[in-house]
């Protein structure tokens, strides 16, 4: 369980909240690059950390992420005209550039200089890989640009998707480091999903349903190791890195692409679940990319034209009781992503953690909360920059490996857990 005041501390991310300030220390994924495909394309509404924003790409290709509402009388700039180097409000024609600076107020004489006094809040928007990243904190604390491996490998090696989840970010993130649910909730998918099946490691997973967990701290967060029995007294290890505040990476299976997530607060009751899938050394095959686009693996299908999953709470996630009874799926919900999302949404918008009954195998979650709490209070009380902001913390990989009985996983896998350009992931 978690006391109410700590739950509030970790779950609230609006401007002015301690956790909101912490999220504003990082470069976070804001949009897929494909959402702003060309100069002067349609502006896109984005809500992040409780702030309603508008993203656009101007005539010269400059990317902007600014306050959604016109400084004049508050109209949503989503209705705006993206033309001639700025976004023009359709109500009275005020125009803003990609930084939020007002560059034209038609009712006033240009010589008056009036428009220079008008500026909407604006944040940088930078394309790295197929994601547009933003930093919503102070300019003088802005860290170097992020270098997560999935977004720095060549485009043909990587695929990213995002889905809207109607829950607080923390319960979604906790699901990503809750290794003990995999043997239950996702037990149906290991042998059937095209993005998982065929790996030798799957046999260890299915043969030993009671993994033993080891949790150690890393510079940026945690390594969570799950150990299962392998041949000759050895252990099959699956190691999940978590980097603050909300990055995690699923241990690989065979030569399949490696995947993981970011959970980014939209507001306190909604988050965006980002899912990346990449191979460190080879292009994704046509079939793999197609499977990802079709919603297999950690991805999902959508209500057309939106990032709302096709299986969602308004249709009971297309619950299939017959499949649940047959054991095709453990919860009756199809697909890894929505199996997770459905249960996390079912907890309610912000889970009341005072009512939990955690057990020892929940120690990864307990430690993650502990580290978040320490980081958020250190930032609030002493201005200490939280872990995960610097590039070296981001250069982590997940690992699947067979180790000897006495090996300490973090030590035995010290190189495997790092990004090694040009070298494959360590996988079984």
């Amino acid at each position, binding site marked *: 369980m978690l006391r109410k005041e700590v739950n509030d501390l970790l779950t609230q991310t609006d401007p002015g909240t301690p956790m909101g300030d912490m999220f504003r220390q990082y470069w976070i994924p804001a949009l897929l690059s494909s959402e702003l495909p060309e100069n002067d394309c349609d502006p896109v509404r984005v809500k992040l950390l409780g702030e309603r924003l508008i993203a656009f790409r101007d005539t010269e290709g400059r990317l902007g992420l600014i306050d959604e509402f016109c400084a004049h009388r508050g109209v949503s700039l989503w209705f705006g005209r993206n033309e001639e180097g700025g976004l023009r409000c359709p109500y009275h024609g005020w125009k803003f550039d990609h930084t939020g600076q007002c560059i034209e107020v038609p009712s006033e004489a240009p010589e008056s200089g009036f428009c220079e006094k008008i500026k909407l809040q604006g944040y940088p928007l930078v394309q790295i890989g197929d994601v547009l990243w933003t930093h919503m904190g102070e300019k003088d604390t802005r860290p170097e640009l992020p270098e997560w491996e999935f977004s720095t490998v060549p485009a043909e090696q990587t695929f990213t998707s995002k889905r809207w989840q109607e829950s607080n970010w923390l319960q979604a993130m906790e699901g990503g480091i809750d290794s003990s649910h995999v043997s239950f909730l996702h037990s149906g998918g290991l042998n059937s999903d095209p993005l998982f099946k065929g790996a030798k490691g799957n046999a260890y997973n299915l043969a030993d349903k009671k993994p033993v*967990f080891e949790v150690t701290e890393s510079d940026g967060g945690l390594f969570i190791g799950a150990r299962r029995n392998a041949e000759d007294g050895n252990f099959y290890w699956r190691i999940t890195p978590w980097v603050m505040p909300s990055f995690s990476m699923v241990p690989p299976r065979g030569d399949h692409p490696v995947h993981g997530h970011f959970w980014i607060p939209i507001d306190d009751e909604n988050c965006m679940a980002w899912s990346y899938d990449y191979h460190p050394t080879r292009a994704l095959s046509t079939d793999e990319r197609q499977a990802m686009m079709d919603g297999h693996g950690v991805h999902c299908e959508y209500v057309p034209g939106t990032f709302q999953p096709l299986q969602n709470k308004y249709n009971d996630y297309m619950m299939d009781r017959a499949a649940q009874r047959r054991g095709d799926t453990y919860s009756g919900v199809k697909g890894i992503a929505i199996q997770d999302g459905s249960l996390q949404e079912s907890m309610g918008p912000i889970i009341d953690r005072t009512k939990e009954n955690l057990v*020892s195998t929940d120690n990864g979650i307990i430690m993650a909360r502990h580290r978040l709490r320490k980081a958020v209070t250190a930032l609030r009380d002493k201005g200490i920059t939280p872990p995960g902001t610097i590039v070296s913390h981001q250069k982590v990989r997940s690992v699947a490996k067979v180790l000897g009985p*006495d090996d300490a996983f973090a030590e035995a896998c010290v190189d495997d857990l790092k990004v090694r350009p040009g070298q494959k992931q360590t996988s079984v």
Partner: protein
Amino acid sequence: MAEAQFRVDYPNSKTRSSRIFALDKKAAQVLQQISEAPWNGAHFLTVLPAKDGKDATDAAYLRLSHPDGSPADVFEELRHADVVILISCDTRATGTAEAIAKVAFANKTMIAGLALAEGKSEGVTNEVVASLRPYASVLVVAQDNDFVPAMLTALRA
């Protein structure tokens, strides 16, 4: 508050019996500091060095004390335990982990191991982890001692 909208505040669990063992002196000092806080019936137990010539892996010779210094009996302590946590900072107590584990396993109680790394070299901590590994179904290496109360609160100890 959104989270309060649909969950009624009925209790959904009874008090647990948690037994927290400090396997060495340093761990005992950490526990001593936190044992005074109000807990939900957790027992904090310090393992004392085995008497000369006695087998430290045999629970019959295990010497335990409560925070006030009074002796405790491992069989009695573990009889109704739901949660058993072994805390260690260095490797001196390897045999006692085995002694406690044998009793806990006989009672089908699982064990969590916690290695406290604050102020210790990685080598020492790795040895601690290796010494707890055969007995623990979950093992945590914590870099700071504040994790102990955080974990005990989370587990409703």
